[in-house]
């Protein structure tokens, strides 16, 4: 059975589906006025929407659930910690997990794996967890794929959550797929939006696909838990409520040194501390339009004025003008700052995928037709080498004005 089926009796051969297909996987027989799926189909689903009017495109046969899905209850969040510090993405996931748990009317649990991390369990509860499963063992002290997979597998089998969320970090994206394969369930990567289908309690997982050109909503209909990794910086952070009550459940997953087939010899932090661009409230970002690596010095001056972090498009990273850790976009970081100032960035779809959900976007570009303007709130068509220095001056004037007012008030 093919993944996507065109019902020949309903198809009128209008060709809308062939236009919607990103993979050139729909052939149109103009004589017979019928469309058909060819072998290039990846079951991406882009064609379904295009055939709303005729309803001729449907999913192929699906297999049925094997297990009793109602046994699985509750929303879990893998509370990623590194060296005893709860990672920012885990705080975002606790916020999002709380929202999903409330929508389902179930409890939110955090999962903490490590050694000597009990204080973090309290932290997770204050951030919204009703319960924290705490697995402590020397073999779980640092992250290893084998150790954390074994512990989570044991926990999932014992306590059966319906939803299990991970941050799409280098750890989450290593662990979640391995675990999903072990517990035989579906996993959706890099989600940017999660919702509960009120009709059947399914988790609707929306993610960018095809280089950010298409958004796809993905479900795991017949297996539990429904697993997803979530892009850092997308969900709203949970706010800590000091003294919030919750339960800490210690769990012995029996993970020993013998389970670990990899050995971490050393963890090296970059000499240059990561700018943590995902954390920045304001980002001043530069693109090919800078024309030269020195352009980033100018952007840094503007960033200093605003208390901002400097970001970059892929072009400048590939050109070696700035480090990869600054890259915003599909293959870089997803950011959601209060203010994003794009300087000399044309706005390739890959870049937009990483920054278009910023609260406020200012675009400065010479080309009035640059795609970046389609996501911008404020558009400045002009030479960034004139506009950015003017901005710095305008900010200086605003500062001195503020100082003047303050000094007058003091006097």
């Amino acid at each position, binding site marked *: 059975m093919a993944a996507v089926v065109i019902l020949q009796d309903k198809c009128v051969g209008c060709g809308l589906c062939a236009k919607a297909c990103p993979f050139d996987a729909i052939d149109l027989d103009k004589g017979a006025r019928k469309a058909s799926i060819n072998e*290039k189909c990846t079951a991406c689903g882009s064609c379904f929407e295009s055939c709303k009017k005729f309803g001729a495109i449907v999913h192929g046969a699906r297999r049925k659930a094997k297990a009793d899905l109602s046994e699985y209850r509750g929303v879990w969040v893998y509370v990623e910690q590194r060296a005893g510090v709860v990672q920012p993405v885990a705080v975002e996931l606790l916020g999002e997990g709380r929202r999903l748990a409330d929508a389902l009317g179930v409890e939110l649990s955090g999962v903490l794996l490590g050694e000597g991390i009990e204080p973090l369990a309290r932290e997770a509860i204050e951030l919204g967890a009703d319960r924290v499963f705490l697995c402590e063992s020397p073999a779980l002290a640092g992250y290893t794929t084998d150790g954390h997979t074994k512990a989570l597998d044991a926990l999932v089998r014992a306590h059966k959550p319906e939803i299990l969320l991970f941050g799409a970090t280098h750890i989450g994206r290593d662990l979640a797929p391995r675990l999903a394969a072990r517990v035989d369930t579906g996993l959706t990567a890099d989600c940017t939006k999660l919702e509960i289908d009120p009709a059947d309690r399914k988790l609707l997982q929306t993610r960018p696909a095809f280089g950010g050109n298409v958004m796809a909503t993905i*479900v795991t209909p017949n297996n539990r838990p429904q697993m997803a990794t979530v892009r850092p910086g997308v969900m709203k952070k949970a706010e800590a409520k000091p003294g919030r009550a919750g339960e800490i459940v210690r769990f012995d997953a029996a993970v020993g040194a013998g389970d670990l087939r990899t050995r971490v010899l050393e963890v090296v932090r970059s000499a240059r501390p990561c700018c943590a661009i995902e954390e920045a409230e304001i980002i001043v970002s530069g693109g090919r339009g800078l024309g030269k690596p020195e352009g980033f010095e100018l952007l840094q001056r503007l960033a200093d004025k605003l208390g901002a972090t400097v970001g970059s498009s892929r072009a400048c990273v590939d050109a070696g003008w700035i480090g990869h850790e600054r890259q915003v976009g599909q293959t870089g970081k997803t950011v959601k700052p209060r203010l994003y100032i794009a300087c000399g960035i044309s706005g390739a779809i890959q870049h937009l995928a990483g920054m278009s959900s910023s609260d406020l976007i200012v675009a400065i570009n010479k080309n009035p037709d640059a795609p970046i303007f389609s996501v911008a709130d404020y558009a400045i068509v002009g030479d960034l080498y004139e506009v950015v220095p003017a901005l710095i001056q305008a900010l200086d004037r605003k500062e001195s004005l503020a100082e003047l007012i303050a000094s007058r008030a003091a006097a």
Partner: protein
Amino acid sequence: MKIIVCVKQVPDTNEVRIDPVKGTLVREGVPSILNPDDKHALEAALRFKDADPAARIVVLSMGPPQAEEALRECLAMGADEAILLSDRAFAGADTWATSNTLAAALRKIGDYDLVFAGRQAIDGDTAQVGPQLAERLGIPQVTYVQRIERRDGKLTVERQLEDGHEVIEVGLPCLLTAIKELNEPRYMSVGGIYDAFGEKTVAVWGLKDLGVSPDQVGLEASLTQVQRSFTPEPKGQAVRLSGTAAEMAEALVGSLAHRHVI
């Protein structure tokens, strides 16, 4: 030493544009390429072969018949053998079903010492097939590999983290996923291209060759389902500032301050 490299042919998503009027994908003229991360995986395998000419490199891909082009490119870069898993039954596979199919092929190939994959493919960007394949094969994995050294029959590899890296020791066989920091892929050589279209062939294996039942591959085995796809909604019109650079800067700072953004 036998090294398997898993690769994928993908549409070059960098070449995809959105039609500004219709808001649909413009897919005309989008070329199919060998997935970039996979090229780094193959290069890493080729470097093992550079050091040990007795090493044998098998490239493996699952895809439609035209994915053969990507495998020919791998042969031209220096791989010894190429296998394409192609069957209508494999279509519509999610990462679970894909890793299941690849695992069946790897078991049929047998006796591998090292399995490489790219971190992720640019059309799906999931980074799931590598770890899921390792799990199916029951071998350890290291993802985001940026450096590899062979020492006393074991590997010492660097795994990239967001804020640095970790140095990991792992035994063989294992699966490594490559990122672009790992190496600079070589170009196809003229002799390589000649061989790739001459004495070297691309074997095509279907469902029957793998000896797995149809419900273990493709859509039948997929645990996830695309419910809906849509193009992201465009934002409303931007406020277009006008005047001299100084006037526009002044207006912007005023607006941002007014909205309490700065």
